[in-house]
């Protein structure tokens, strides 16, 4: 990707991420502080390093992007962080949730739905493209196994990918997590050509 194209992609992802954090904030009734936002070109094989290593037990909320082009959105948390989100979503006292029940998974899935939809809403409205999230899938596994779902698709056409990694936290609870945006080549091309065309 050229530097101007990378900058446009970064601007769009930043816009989408800000909107996604607004959605999360509204959903959990807490202010969200974005502590870190990085957009990098990384080898697909090394993605798991960004979530504490391939063998780290994690909870993943995964959505695909459909519509004008496809891509992947994934939220990954350490289990105790995911459970803290469940407590917030279900208006429970901290440390109430200690295991992944079907209702806990459903609450996390809905959180992923709101974050993913708000992210895509911002990008769709900025570019005029129709971009829709799939229903979310909530999985508990080693981070490497969770990310295999995404990397298998990307490796079909590239050894590298553009990883947007956002770390965020709430003000009064020790909660933070990563939000990965991993575009397919088609999604990048569609978004950049449309965004560039609309800006021209």
């Amino acid at each position, binding site marked *: 990707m050229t530097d101007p194209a990378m900058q446009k992609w970064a601007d769009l992802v930043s816009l989408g991420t800000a909107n996604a954090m607004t959605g999360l904030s509204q959903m959990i009734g807490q202010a969200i502080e974005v502590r870190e936002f990085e957009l990098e070109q990384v080898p697909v094989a090394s993605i798991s390093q960004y979530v504490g290593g391939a063998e780290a037990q994690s909870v993943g909320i995964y959505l695909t992007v459909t519509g004008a082009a496809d891509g992947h959105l994934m939220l990954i948390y350490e289990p105790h962080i995911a459970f803290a989100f469940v407590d917030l979503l279900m208006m429970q006292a901290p440390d109430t949730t200690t295991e992944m029940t079907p209702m806990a998974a*459903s609450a996390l899935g809905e959180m992923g739905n709101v974050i993913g939809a*708000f992210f895509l809403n911002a990008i769709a409205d900025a570019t005029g493209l129709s971009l829709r999230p799939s229903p979310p899938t909530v999985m508990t596994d080693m981070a490497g196994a969770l990310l295999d779902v995404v990397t298998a698709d990307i490796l079909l056409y590239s050894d590298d990918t553009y990883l947007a990694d956002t770390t965020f936290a709430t003000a009064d609870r020790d909660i933070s997590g990563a939000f990965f945006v991993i575009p397919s080549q088609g999604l990048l091309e569609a978004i950049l050509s449309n965004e560039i065309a609309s800006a021209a």
Partner: protein
Amino acid sequence: MAKVLIADDAAFMRMKSAQLLKELGHEVIEAENGEEAVSLFSEHSPDAVLLDITMPVMDGLDALKAIMAKDPKAKVAMVTAMGQQQVIMEAIKAGAKDFVVKPFDASRIEEALWKLVK
């Protein structure tokens, strides 16, 4: 009191919405996807329908079109995080009477329901 059909693939959201509607004195019917919503609409003839959009099997926009084909006077509101302008326009054109963006306040659902069944 109204008979309200809610369709959402997330059990968590169905639980929250059903709890709110029952507290308001309404009867609630729950569907897990668009196809089930269309079937339950035919079976129960609800006074109002609250439809999510992103659902498996059949999404909410297709369910909306199927419900409106069965009953052009059906009272349907979309309740979804998909707040894109194109999606809102498609839903309104297909016959949705209101569009509630998740996450919602209880008062916003009350307002939507009041508009549907007044």
